[in-house]
Structure formats: C-alpha cells, structure tokens
C-alpha cells in the first residue's frame, strides 16, 4: 500500500502509447485484438473499483450493476437515436455516476458487510430491471444491432476502436495513479484506516466516500459503454452477481490499492476463461480453486506481493534520531495569540448510553491560551466528555460554545475545521500510511487546488503539494520525527506514535487541542519531552485541554484542573486547590476498598509540582 508510484513518469506513458499503437499490427487475428480490447475494458472497471476497494476500503459486490447501467444507456441511445461513441460515453458515465451517488448515500450509516448487502441488492435490482423492462432493454433477448462506433462522425473499425479504448484505459490508469498520490487518495485511505481520526482532522468522510463511489461508478459506466461497441450486443446475463464477484477478484488478484494491480488482474481474468475452456465441465471448478489459491498464496495480490518483496529487500537501515533544533511553530502553521477570552464553554452537558448517564450536567470553561486538565478516577466520564465536545458523541442535553459559536450539534469534522483538534487515548493513526502522509492528511482542507487540477497535475496542484509537504516535514521536525518521515506509522515506537498524533493535530492550525491521556505508556524521558512540547504549544498560543492520569504531569503544567467523578463535576480550580479538596480525596480513596495500602492512582497527594 505504501509502495505506490509517486511520480508521474512520461517514459511509461510513451511506451504504453507505442504499445497500443503497435498492437493491432502484432495481433494474430481480429479475435485476439478483440480480446485485448476486452482486457482494457476490464482494466478500466477494475481501476475504478480499486479506488473504492483498495483506497477507500469499501467493498462493492454490485459493480456489474453500474457496468450494466453504462452499457444499457449506450446501447439504447445508439440503437434508437444513433448516438455516437462520445455522447454515449458522456451519458453512460453520467448516469452511472448518478447511481454512484445513490449507492454512496447508505455508506453514511451502513458499514462493512451490511454495505456489501446493499451493493449486492443494487446489482440484483439492476439485473432484474434489465430483464423485466422489456420495451426498453429487450429483456433476455437483449439489444443487438448496435451500430459500429463513430468518433466525431467517423466510423471506427476494430483497429481504430482498439486504439480509442487503449487511450481511454491509459487515461484511466493515470487518473487512478494521480488520484492515489494526492490529497484525495490520502483522504480515502485515511477514512479506510480510521474513520474517527479522519473526521477529527476535518475530513468529510461522507463526501470522500461519495467521491470514491462516483469515480468507480463512472469507470464502470465507461467500461459498459466500451463493451457495447465492442460486442455490439448485450443482455442481462453478463451483469449478474457472479460478474460483480469477478470484477472484485480482478482487483484483489492484481493487488488492491496498487497502481498496476487492477490492470494485471484484469489481464489474467480476461485470458483465464480462454485457457479454462480446456477443462470442459471442470472449468468452473478450476476457477474456484484458482480463486482460493490466490487468497492463500497472494493475499495482497500479485503486484502487492511483489512490491512487499522488493521493498523489504530494499529496506534501508533505520535512521538515527538526530537531536534537531525545534523550529518555531508559528513559522509552520497559523497560530493565534491568546486573548484571554473563553475558548470553550460547556453548559450542563449530559451524555447517556441507554440508562447509564456517563456525563451528567457538566459545566466547564476553558480559557484561551491556558492548559486545562480534566482528571478523575476510571469511568468518571472524562473521555466521554472529550468525545462530546469534539463531536464524536452528541450531547443529550446542554450546550457547547467554541470560540463564541454554538457548536453543540456540529460533527467532528466541522469542529476540526473551526480549529478544534484532538489526539486519542488509544492512538488512532493511519497505520498503513507513512508518517509524512499521516500529517499530510490533516492538511486536506487547506489545499486550494481542486479535484480536476489534482488529477491533471496542474501547476496549482504542484504548488500546493510542494508547500504542504514542506509544512508537514517542518511539523515532523517540530515534534522530532523528521528522521521517520517515510516510515510506516505502524512501525513507529509507541512514544513516537503519540508524538505523530500531536503533529498531525497541529496541521489543523488548532485553536484548541484536546489531548486524551497523552502520557499513557510513555517512558520517563518521553514524558519530559511531552511536558516541554505541551508548554511550547501553550506558549505559541494554543489552548490545551488535557485528560490524564499522570498526576505529576498534571500538577506541573496545568493552569486549571477540573475533577469528574461518576459523570459529575466535583471540583474545579487551580492544581493546588483541587489537590486538597475533600471531595476529590473522597472520590479517589472514598468508599472504594482497595485492600491494603493506597490505590495506584493515589499519587494525587504526592504531586511534586
């Protein structure tokens, strides 16, 4: 996944173009040329599906339905109105894309295997409509007499048509490649790996998924249109559930999430039936066996497995962490000097799960530029409160105001865009992406270049990409991770993972940073570093709300401490005030019996700050 091509390579395009132009002359006969055309059509659908499955992590078992929509649109317009190839393509892709939007809508609420059922149902509905809407689709008899394709009024013979399809497949390949290596591709992979972290970085997950569905649907639609003009005949039989499985298999077999995998998978799946014919009645058995073998031997697919093999051989020695000078945060991202006003104001916030009230009418004000701590025994509702103000959960009652704006009903990605950033108790990194990419994801909303200029690699995209790569590298230097920029996030040591989460959150130029137990699992030295980092953040003007069990840390850095117990606010004041509050002592030692000696959390009294 991480080993994808990063740079647009003109030599490859030229080589591919020469091959496409030469193939009609190399091909032994018309049948062979048609087969290669079919291969390229399958490559288009597989490349599109790769965006959905490989990048966005959504499984579609209804791709044949979208393929059918493109095919029937072109066939109906061509046979009834004599529409040519290009308008047919536009219509087919537009309609398939529209259905892509419809299909994406359930992903807002429906997940995983449930989503697979939605796509299966969609495929079956399309097949059923194609069978039953006799007057339009010709039912089982299908649509024949499709005229020869025309381009700008000129009829295309088999050779010319092959070149048109070849060029289109090349374009599809480049779109896939450029998409993959762009903020959109990164956002897609991010939503696949951690939806919740993506939201917290301001990514509109529903919009990104819709984009992925539309791209894959349009590719399927285009493939359907090309198929109609190749075969000059369609019927419902080739748009069945088994065909959706076949398309998915192309992506998996070649290597899902890789640039070339879909093309390789499509090649194999096009030629395979030709050779399987030799098995007579056993051919579907052989097909099943092959499918099983691929899943076992090459779970990452052919290209994916090769890339893993090659990259592990090329793996360089781990870089040494040099002691770098911490750059000034204000030089990297926009920071606003604190003005002393209330940054966050929560009034009477309650969150309940079923009958259990996790947070009960909590009032909390966080002043800007201050370090504010939230403590309490396990199960006191600290994380729930944090989730409520960051939009992960919705408060059942009460109101939340952020920077003077009522935000009670906002989603976490909307809050992130307002400048509320956070880290997670159990780190939520995009573990399959590199350290640098993790930070780049957070810059998603800052890019000015749009989808079109991104895909076409226009100068505005190049400018943005260069700028934010530099900014991301600087942020890594700020937290001391620049040596690991190209390392996979999951390979980082735990302490480094926590630092990366902070760097990622900083990319949002936050006004308020929520740290959920940032010291958990850190070594003593790492905690020292963390304290220095948090102080520097506050000094740069970022307001901090920190949930932590580590009392020394709290006492050392907090300007203000709030204590929760059983979902209720029991104390609030300066560190030294709460330390001596009887209610707090009661909460930590009170009625609970720990047996002999003080509980581990009893460090409350031994504060050194």
């Amino acid at each position, binding site marked *: 996944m991480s080993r994808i091509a990063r740079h647009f390579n003109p030599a490859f395009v030229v080589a591919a173009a020469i091959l496409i132009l030469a193939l009609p002359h190399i091909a032994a006969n018309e049948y062979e040329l048609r087969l290669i055309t079919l291969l390229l059509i399958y490559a288009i659908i597989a490349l599109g599906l790769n965006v959905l499955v490989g990048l966005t992590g959504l499984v579609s078992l209804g791709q044949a339905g979208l393929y059918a929509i493109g095919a029937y649109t072109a066939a109906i317009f061509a046979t009834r109105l004599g529409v040519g190839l290009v308008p047919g393509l536009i219509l087919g892709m537009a309609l398939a894309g529209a259905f892509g939007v419809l299909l994406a809508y359930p992903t807002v609420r429906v997940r995983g*295997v449930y989503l697979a059922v939605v796509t299966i149902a969609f495929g079956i509905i399309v097949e059923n409509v194609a069978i039953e809407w006799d007057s339009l689709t010709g039912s089982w008899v299908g649509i024949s007499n499709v005229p020869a394709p025309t381009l700008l009024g000129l009829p295309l013979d088999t050779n010319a048509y092959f070149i048109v399809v070849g060029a289109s497949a090349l374009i599809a390949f480049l779109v896939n490649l450029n998409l993959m290596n762009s903020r959109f591709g990164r956002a897609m992979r991010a939503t696949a790996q951690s939806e919740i972290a993506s939201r917290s970085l301001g990514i509109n997950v529903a919009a990104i998924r819709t984009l992925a569905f539309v791209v894959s649907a349009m590719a399927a639609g285009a493939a359907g249109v090309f198929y109609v003009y190749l075969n000059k005949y369609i019927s419902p039989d080739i748009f069945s559930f088994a065909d959706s499985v076949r398309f998915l298999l192309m992506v998996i077999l070649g290597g899902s999430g890789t640039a070339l995998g879909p093309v390789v998978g499509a090649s194999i799946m096009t030629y395979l039936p030709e050779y399987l014919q030799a098995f007579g009645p056993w051919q579907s058995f052989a097909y099943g066996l092959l499918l099983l073998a691929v899943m076992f031997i090459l779970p990452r697919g052919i290209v994916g497995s090769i890339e893993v093999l090659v990259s592990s051989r090329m793996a360089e020695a781990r870089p040494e962490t040099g002691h770098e000078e911490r750059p000034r945060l204000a030089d990297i991202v926009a920071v606003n000097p604190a003005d002393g006003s209330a940054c966050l104001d929560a009034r009477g916030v309650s969150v309940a*799960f079923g009958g259990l009230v996790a947070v009960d009418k909590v009032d909390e004000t966080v002043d800007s530029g201050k370090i504010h701590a939230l403590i309490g025994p396990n199960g006191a509702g600290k994380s729930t409160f944090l989730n409520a103000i960051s939009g992960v959960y919705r408060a059942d009652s009460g109101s939340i105001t952020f920077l003077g704006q009522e935000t009670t009903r906002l989603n976490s990605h909307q809050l992130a865009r307002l400048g509320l950033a956070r880290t997670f108790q159990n780190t939520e990194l995009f573990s399959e992406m590199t350290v640098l990419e993790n930070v780049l994801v957070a810059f998603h909303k800052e890019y000015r270049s749009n989808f079109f200029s991104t895909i076409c690699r226009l100068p505005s995209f190049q400018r943005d990409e260069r700028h934010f790569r530099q900014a991301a590298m600087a942020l890594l230097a700020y937290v001391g991770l620049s040596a690991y920029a190209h390392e996979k996030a999951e390979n980082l040591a735990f302490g480094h993972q926590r630092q990366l989460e902070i760097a990622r959150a900083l990319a949002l130029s936050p006004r308020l940073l929520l740290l959920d137990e940032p010291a958990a699992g850190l070594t003593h030295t790492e905690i020292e570093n963390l304290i220095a980092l948090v102080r520097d953040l506050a000094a740069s003007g970022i307001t901090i709300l920190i949930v932590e069990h580590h009392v020394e840390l709290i006492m050392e850095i907090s300007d203000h401490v709030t204590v929760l117990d059983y979902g209720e606010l029991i104390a609030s004041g300066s560190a030294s005030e709460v330390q001596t509050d009887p209610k707090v002592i009661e909460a930590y030692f009170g009625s609970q019996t720990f047996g002999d000696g003080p509980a581990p959390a009893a460090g409350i009294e031994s504060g050194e700050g």
Partner: protein
Amino acid sequence: MSAALQYFLAGLGIGGIYALVAIGFHIMWSSAKAVNFAHGDTLMLGAVLTIVFLDHGIAMPLAILLSIGVAIVFGVLLERVAIRPFADHAASIGWMLTTIAIGIMLESYATIEFGAFARPLPSPGVDKPIIIFGAGVFIQELLIPFVAVLIVVLLGLFQRRTQLGRAMRAVAFNRVAAGIVGINVLHVAMFSFALASALGGLAGILVAPVIQASATMGLLLGIKGFAVAIIGGITSAPGVVIAGLLYGIIEKFVDGYISTAAREAVGFSLVIVVLMLFPQGLFGRRELVKV
C-alpha cells in the same frame, strides 16, 4: 379471500426456507464476525447427498444422518480453511472471496457428479396438499417455518442453559473479552460453524421435497437468506427468522397482486430501504464506537 390465504401460506413456506438459511448465517456471524457466503451450498450438500445415499440403497433415516454428518465436517473444514486465516483482517473481502470460491467449487463438482437436473427427494409431507378454506398447502411447507421457529427456541435454551451455549453468547458479545476470561474462542467458532452447517444440511433436506434438489439450488437461497439475515439484524436469532418469514410472504403477495416480474426488484429495494432506516437491521444490536 382464498387467494390471499393461498399467497400467505405459500409465502410462509418460502419464508421458512429463507429463515432456515438465515439462522445459519446468524450463528456463524455471532462467533466469527464472518460467514460462509456459500451457505446456500451447504443446503445443497445436505439435499443432494441424501439422494445419493438413497440411490446407494441406504435407508432414509441413516441417509439423513450421514448427510448432516458430512455437512458438519464441511463446516468445520471451511471454518479452518476459509474463515480463520482471514478473520483478522478488518476488511471483510478475504473470507467473502474464499467462501465464494469454495461455493463455486462445490457447485461445480456437484453439477458434474450429480448432474445438472433437479431431482426429487421423497417425503410424506408433499404427497397430498391439505386444503384450508380453499387454499392448498403441503404439510412440508408448514413444517419448514415451524422448524425454523423451533430451532430459534432451542438455540435460545441452549445458549442460556449450557456452558458451551453461554460461551457462544459471550463470544458473540465481545470476542476479545471472552478470550480474556478463558473461553477458547477458536473452539467456539469451530462449534458454531459445525452447528450452522448441520442446520444448513438439515434445512436442505427439509426444503428439497418442496423445491427439489439440484447442484444449483443453493445460490439464490444463499443470497436471499443472507439479505434476510442482514435486514433482520444478523445478531438476533428471532430477528432473522421473523425477517425471513415476512420476506417470503411479501414476495408472494407481490407475485399475486403486482406481478411475478416485479418480485426481485421490489424485494431487494425493500432490503436497501430497511438498511437505510435501520443500519443494524430491524432487530440488530447497535454497535457503539469507542475511542
């Protein structure tokens, strides 16, 4: 009136079939958060093998037992080979494709060995229809939904009263926590697949007298049974049975009052609508995101 009753009874029979398939999906899902996508072929295995054993002169009760035995072995092997190695991956593509692959192989092999023709499985339940207010129905068709309901009741008792059953419930609720308290999660998964396959084989034998046994009988049953399990809420056994029965009855009424042609489009549109309104299915348990 008698037409409506006829549709209702016929729908109950067909819905019972979907319910039986869906229970298998429920059991597998609860233990492994993965299912045999080709569970329909387990039904085929039960039905086809029973006929093959009968052909070899084995008596009916023994033939049924033997077929269910083979189905159990199949389920255990499938869990070991096609599910377990792929259960760790968050993306569910792995086990979907491996089980589909095994389904393709099974169906293909059965077509070659058993033949492509459908064959009858004799049963006293389909000798003569009984007539209720002018609507005819075979005993077998009423038996199927009855057995589906019975299985849910027995499954519920089993899961409450026995050690193994309670372990199943614990694993269904939280795999990791169940493992921590000392439940052998892998054994539970194996047992669940064995149970699901046994019930699948039994279901195949029960439905074959009505729909006939053939190598390809499983495909559509599997897809519909899975869809039904999902809209019923795959975490709830009573939920999937209720959804199955309702789906069958709705299908027959669409057949009767709208048109045979509209059946699949209406049925599967309903599936999508239900999932949009109830993302966890009608009776499913909502899973909370925790960070």
